[in-house]
């Protein structure tokens, strides 16, 4: 039996040492998926030729050919990233039959590194939600307690990494969609600086603030993934040049002397006591490593969720307008319809959360209301960014729990959108300001994971990963019970 629980870096090392073969690892991963995924439902589709792919990579390794840095590592991909020739549904009925005719930039880059895309994983429809309950194909379950939601929207990514159905995963983070499920499933979830990773081929929800990010077992694995998928891309005009930074080098440097601000508004009333005490514990552990921690107030955080939902609904209303079923989508004949009525009818296939946000998105930026809602939200965004920039003049890093509460039961909050929205309070700030943030598994309470979140200033991703690695090393968590 191959140990499927190893980190990405260990996988690479063991392959290089000849201890394991890609074929064995991938085929046992497929078996593992068969075994646990009926319960967990992380995957929307599993590629059927992955074992052949792994075999071909083994052959390359044996013959001494040049092999990419992933060495056939099985990686799961959130189903909102395009892989040429494979279905990309965004967990929506609208894109039930959409087969992407091109590769997302991250996919192209990982293909060059000989990654094996084991399958496409579940998510909330069009990445709107934080439980995966809004997937049109049914929710995923939390491997720590299958009665609980795994978080979202990249729930399938977090579950697949947590339950050893792959080594790493790519998710996307618009308001916490990588960090939230990572926190709930006990894995690392990292949202890089806006522009560090190309979004070309990532199906847009709120394009001005979202980023692709890795979900991994260790912080080092996140740095390893970032090394492979970041950088300028002529297909995405918003990408930034990082001068080919190596995020793994110096990751053990520690955090001695670093100033860390504790965001007061993110440990406010309503924070679960267990989360609160974990936060205190994390702070004292960081201090014991030589960091200097101090509270800081970022006033605009109070309005961040309202601003976030206003801006994302506006962008979603526009980004999802193209799904009129005229050029691609699902089977629904056009005969007998005038185009307006056809489009209206075709769009009924959107699920409830997407519909809700599109209605909001049609309203908040509309003439006569924009000043009260959309433009005001944009003001909050720029004020928040100003405040956070101010904070980074004083601090190297900021800290807060990733989510103020523990994973809750399936069905518990799905009918209460407003209380669901508030779960995002600690994560949306990084998106609205473009700053990098990472969630590190830090504690287990009542058998459920708690993630701790660190923020850094834009393009300080290297420092962020160093600090996260230091924090991660202070704890040893039990193994997932599945």
């Amino acid at each position, binding site marked *: 039996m191959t140990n499927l629980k190893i980190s990405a870096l260990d996988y690479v090392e063991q392959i290089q040492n000849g201890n394991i073969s890609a074929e064995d690892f991938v085929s046992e991963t497929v078996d593992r998926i068969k075994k646990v995924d009926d319960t967990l439902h992380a995957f929307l589709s599993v590629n059927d030729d992955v074992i052949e792919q792994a075999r071909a990579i083994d052959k390359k390794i044996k013959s001494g050919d040049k092999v990419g840095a992933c060495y056939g590592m099985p990686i799961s991909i959130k189903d909102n990233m395009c892989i040429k020739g494979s279905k990309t549904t965004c967990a929506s009925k609208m894109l039930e039959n959409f087969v992407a005719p091109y590769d997302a930039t991250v996919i192209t880059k990982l293909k060059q590194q000989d990654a094996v895309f084991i399958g496409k994983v579940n998510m909330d429809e069009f990445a709107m939600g934080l439980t995966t309950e809004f997937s049109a194909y049914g929710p995923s379950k939390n491997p720590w307690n299958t009665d609980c939601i795994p978080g979202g929207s990249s729930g399938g990514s977090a579950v697949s990494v947590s339950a050893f159905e792959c080594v790493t995963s790519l998710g996307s983070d618009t308001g916490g969609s990588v960090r939230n499920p990572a926190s709930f499933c006990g894995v690392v979830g990292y949202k890089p600086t806006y522009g560090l990773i190309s979004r070309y081929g990532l199906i847009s929800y709120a394009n001005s603030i979202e980023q692709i990010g890795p979900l991994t077992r260790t912080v080092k694995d996140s740095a390893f993934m970032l090394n492979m998928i970041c950088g300028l891309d002529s297909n995405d005009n918003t990408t930034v040049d990082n001068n080919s930074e190596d995020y793994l080098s110096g990751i053990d440097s520690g955090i001695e002397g670093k100033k860390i601000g504790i965001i007061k508004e993110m440990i406010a009333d309503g924070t679960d006591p267990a989360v609160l005490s974990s936060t205190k514990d994390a702070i004292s552990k960081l201090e014991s490593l030589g960091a200097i921690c101090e509270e800081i107030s970022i006033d605009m955080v109070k309005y961040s969720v309202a601003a976030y939902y206003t801006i994302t609904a506006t962008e979603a209303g526009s980004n999802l307008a193209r799904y009129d079923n*005229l050029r691609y989508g699902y089977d629904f004949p056009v005969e007998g319809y005038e185009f307006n009525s056809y489009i209206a009818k075709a769009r009924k296939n959107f699920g409830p959360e997407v519909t809700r946000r599109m209605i909001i998105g049609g309203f908040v930026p509309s003439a006569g209301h924009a000043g009260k809602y959309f433009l005001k939200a944009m003001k909050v965004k720029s004020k928040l960014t100003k405040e956070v920039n101010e904070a980074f003049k004083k601090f190297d890093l900021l800290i807060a729990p990733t989510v103020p509460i523990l994973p809750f039961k399936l069905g518990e909050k799905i009918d209460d959108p407003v209380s669901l929205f508030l779960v995002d309070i600690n994560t949306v700030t990084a998106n609205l300001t473009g700053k990098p943030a990472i969630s590190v598994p830090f504690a287990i309470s009542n058998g459920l994971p708690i993630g701790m979140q660190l923020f850094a200033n834009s393009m300080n991703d290297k420092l962020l990963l160093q600090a996260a690695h230091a924090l991660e090393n202070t704890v040893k968590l039990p193994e997932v019970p599945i």
Partner: protein
Amino acid sequence: MTKIGLEIHCQLTNLNSKLFCSCKANYREFEINENICPICMGLPGSLPRLNQEAVKKATMIAMALNCSTPEKIAFFRKNYFYPDLPKNFQITQLNIYGDTSIGGTGSIMVGDKKINITRIQLEEDPGRLIYEGSSSKNQITLVDYNRAGTPLVEIVTEPDFESPKQVREFLNILSDLLENLGVSDPSLEGAMRADANVSIEGGKKVEVKNIGSFHDLEKATHFEITRQTSLHSRDIDIIQETRHWDDKRKITISSRSKEEELDYRYFLEGDIPWITIDSSIQEKLRTEMPESISSKKERYISKYNIPPQVADVLSSDKFYSDLFDESHDETNAKEIANIITTDLMGLVDTREKREESKLSAKHLAELSNAIQSGKISRNSSKNALHEIIKSGKELSEIISELDLGNVSDESELLKIITEVISAEPQAVEQAKSNPQTINYLVGKVMQKTKGKADPKLTLDLLKKQIE
């Protein structure tokens, strides 16, 4: 007072690629839905990739129309549903959140009238709807996306025009200007389209949309003024509305759609970061801009003493001014200007003829030199020019093939002159008393030589013979 304002859509037809992808800007040569890719089809996950060349060319248009050019520009989304719009929003520009369009206010003189430009924006063209089926019952709509994403510059004017004639004059100037800049070929079908706002004294503003050519724009404004005037004379209110130009019946029709009530929910296009066009970039662009029409005209007049009317014609048409600039030198400039404006213009008066023409700048230079050195008469040069355009052959070859060379051999010419003198005794007598009338005899000699006699030599010889 009649007021007309224009919104002109001009495709940047001379660019290689579309505004946000590498599909061809020249979509006309493709089979239906062959010039498309994930980006211009707005497929899930695709992102716009801004064509920097389009930004340059649009900035040049703004500069040529004397518009202000902001240092930072941005793109916005105009959200509305229409089947020809793959993303169901159009990436465009506007100035409601500050001056972020590629061109701000400017102006251009049309005769003595100053026409103010409100703004210039760069945007993507949608696809094209094709209607099939004979009646509305069985009509189907097909969409060709080849055009989707083609770079379009919208030029918005103030309502400064007072007549359709002014509109036409402006459009002529604008066409020449765009062509001279090398950004667009206004003669291509669909390359220039326009909407017009028309109002008469005491009436409300009426917007006429869907005018597919500059030619129709004058007609449409004329129709609209006539319509409004006749309503007004019968005391019928002119309502504020949007009308569509029916290019088959050449009338405007009230559009029942609620288009004017659409809320486009404009907001910043986050996939395209703000673009900086600072003063140093603008300076560089200015140096890259082709010489303006007015500067060319000025140069032709002051340097070569070409008459203003000739210089005007020559400079305003890029095809002719390019030929002129490539062929002339100090000695033959006037002659070449003459050949172009008196002969060539009649021979290549359509787009097709220009494309087929085999005439080169070298041909023109040789032809003018041949005229000046007396190798060929002005008369024969017209025939030679015709042949050059057709065949592209060397001038010397054509002269000998068609026997167009001047008769400058004295003895041969003398023979003909003697014949003329004996045949025209009366005219000879007249010429003796009144030297002015000798031209009649020169004409006769020309007739006999089919215009090939060297006129100066003929005159000299004739004078000698008569005395």
